[in-house]
C-alpha cells in the first residue's frame, strides 16, 4: 500500500481516495486464476469482477476490474493489497471495518457503504466458491451468509 497518513478531514474525498481511484492497484485480470466472481450494486451500477489465485493455502495473486465510483475503486485497491499473500484463514477473517478504517470511511452513509464494500462482498463469495470445492463438509457456507449480509 502507498504510504499515506490517514487524513482527519471530515471530507471523504481526501487525496488517498482520489489517487487510488485514478490509479487503482491490482487492476486487471489473472490468466488461469483459481476462482473468479462477479457482482454489482443494482441501484448505482457499480459492477466488478475479481480473480484470485491460491498457492500453499495463501492468496498468491488477486486482481479486480470493472466500473465503480472513487470509493468503490479505492476500497478495491486497498482490499486487494491487504489480501495479497495472506493465508486463507486470515482472508476469511477480514471485517468491513478493516477496509473502512484504512480509508477513513467509518462514517460513510448507508447508501455509499455498498460502494465501499462491494469488493469485500465479492471476495467473500469468491472464497466461498473456492473453499466449497474442497471443503464438502459445509464449513464454507458461513462465508456465503456473511457475504450476503454485509450490507
Amino acid at each position: 500500500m502507498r504510504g499515506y497518513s490517514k487524513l482527519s478531514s471530515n471530507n471523504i474525498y481526501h487525496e488517498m481516495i482520489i489517487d487510488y481511484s485514478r490509479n487503482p492497484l491490482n487492476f486487471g485480470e489473472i490468466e488461469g486464476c483459481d476462482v473468479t466472481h462477479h457482482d454489482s450494486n443494482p441501484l448505482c451500477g457499480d459492477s466488478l469482477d475479481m480473480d484470485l489465485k491460491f498457492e500453499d493455502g495463501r492468496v498468491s495473486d488477486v486482481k479486480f476490474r470493472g466500473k465503480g465510483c472513487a470509493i468503490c475503486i479505492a476500497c478495491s485497491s486497498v482490499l486487494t493489497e491487504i489480501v495479497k499473500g495472506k493465508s486463507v484463514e486470515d482472508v476469511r477473517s477480514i471485517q468491513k471495518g478493516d477496509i473502512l478504517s484504512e480509508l477513513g470511511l467509518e462514517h460513510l452513509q448507508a447508501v455509499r457503504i455498498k460502494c465501499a464494500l462491494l469488493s469485500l462482498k465479492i471476495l467473500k463469495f469468491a472464497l466461498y466458491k473456492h473453499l466449497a470445492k474442497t471443503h464438502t463438509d459445509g464449513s464454507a457456507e458461513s462465508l456465503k451468509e456473511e457475504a450476503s449480509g454485509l450490507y
Partner: protein
Amino acid sequence: MPDVRGDFPILGRSVHDKRLVYLDNASTSQKPRQVLDKMSDYYHNTNSNIHRAVYVIAEESTAKYEEVRDKVARFVGASDRREIVFVRGTTEAINLVAYSWGRSNVNEGDIIVTTEYEHHSNIVPWQILAKERGAKLEYINIDDNGELELDDLERHLATGRVKLVAFSLMSNVLGTISDASRIIAMCRQAGVCTLVDGAQAVPHMQVNVSEMRCDFFTFSGHKMLAPTGVGVLQASRKMLESMAPFHGGGDMIREVHRQETTWNDVPYKFEAGTPSIADVIGLGAAIDYLENIGMSRVRDHEVELTEYALKKLGEIKNLRIYGTRDISKRGGVISFNFEDIHPHDVAQIIDEDGIAMRSGHHCAQVLMEKLGVAATSRVSFYIYNTREDIDILVESLHRVARIFKVE
C-alpha cells in the same frame, strides 16, 4: 386503557350537531395526531425518493422507510426484516401471493381452501387463480356459532390435492377469532401451505407469525391507526426467494438488459416502483403508538366494550346478533339485524344521531348467503371507543325500532 380520545382530532368533530360516534373501525380506523405529525414532518423535511440517491434528504428518507421494516418485523414477530414486503394493503398482498406463488404452485386438479367467513379479498383472487389453473376452490363452512368447522378442513386435506389454505385470523363480520394454531398444525401435518389474513387481527391483538408458523401473513395499515396506502405481506425469506416477481419495474431489479433481467434481493424484488413512502412512515408511527399502549391493553379494552355491547344489544327486542357469545373467541366486531328492517335504513337513521356504523355485505357475500341475509348492521370498536358510545348506539337503535314500529 389511558384516555386517548384527545389524540384523535376527528373525534372532536360534530355530525348533524351531535358528536361523532365512530363505530366503523373494522372498515378503517381513525388516525392519531402522532401519526399525522410524523407524515407531515416527513413531507416538510425529508421528502425524496428512496434507495437511489446519495444526497442527505434521500438518505434520511431511505433510513426512515427501512426503519419501519424493522418495526413491522418486530411488531408481528417475524424473524427477519427481509420477510416484510410493503404493499398497498391486504388485498394487494393476497393478490401478490395468488399471482406469484399461485401461478407456479397450483395446477390442474389442485384444491385451494378458503372459508365461508372470508372477506372478498381472500376469495376472489383464489377464484381467479383456480379458474386460470383448472383448480378447485373449496370452503371451510361455519357452524351456528360462526366458528369454522374444522372437519371440513380435515376432509379437504384428506384428498391430498390441497395446495393452500387461506383464512382470516379474525372475521370482519362475525368477529370470530380463528383457531389458527390448530388449522396451521393440520396443514403442516399435511404439507400444505397457509395464508393468514390478519387484517382484522393485527390492529386489535398481539400477533406472532413465528409462533403461528403460517407461510404467508397479510394486513393493512389503515385499520391500525396508519394512513391508507400501506399494508404488509410477510413470508419467510426462503419462500419469497423461491417466488417469481409480481410487478416489474424500478427497484425490483438487479440488472436490466434488453432481453434479460435479474431480480433484486428480497423483499425489494416485490416492491416495484416508487412505494407509498409517507404512508409507510405513518405505519411506523402507528406501531409506536400501539406499542406504547400495549396490545394486551388494546385487547382488554375491546373485550370489555364488546361484553358490554353484547349485553346491551341483546336487550333490544327483535334484534338478532350473529356469531359466538364466547368473548374469548371473538374480537370487537358485532353484526346484527333487526327483523324486518333493512340494515341500510338502520344505518341511515342512526347517522342522524352522529353514529358512523356500517351496513351492507361487508365484502363478505358468501357469508351473507350462508346467513341468509343480503346485509347486516355492524359495529366495531377501537381504543378510543367508550361505554358511552355504546349507550348512544343503543338509544338510537330504540329510535329505529320506534320509527319502524317493531318495538
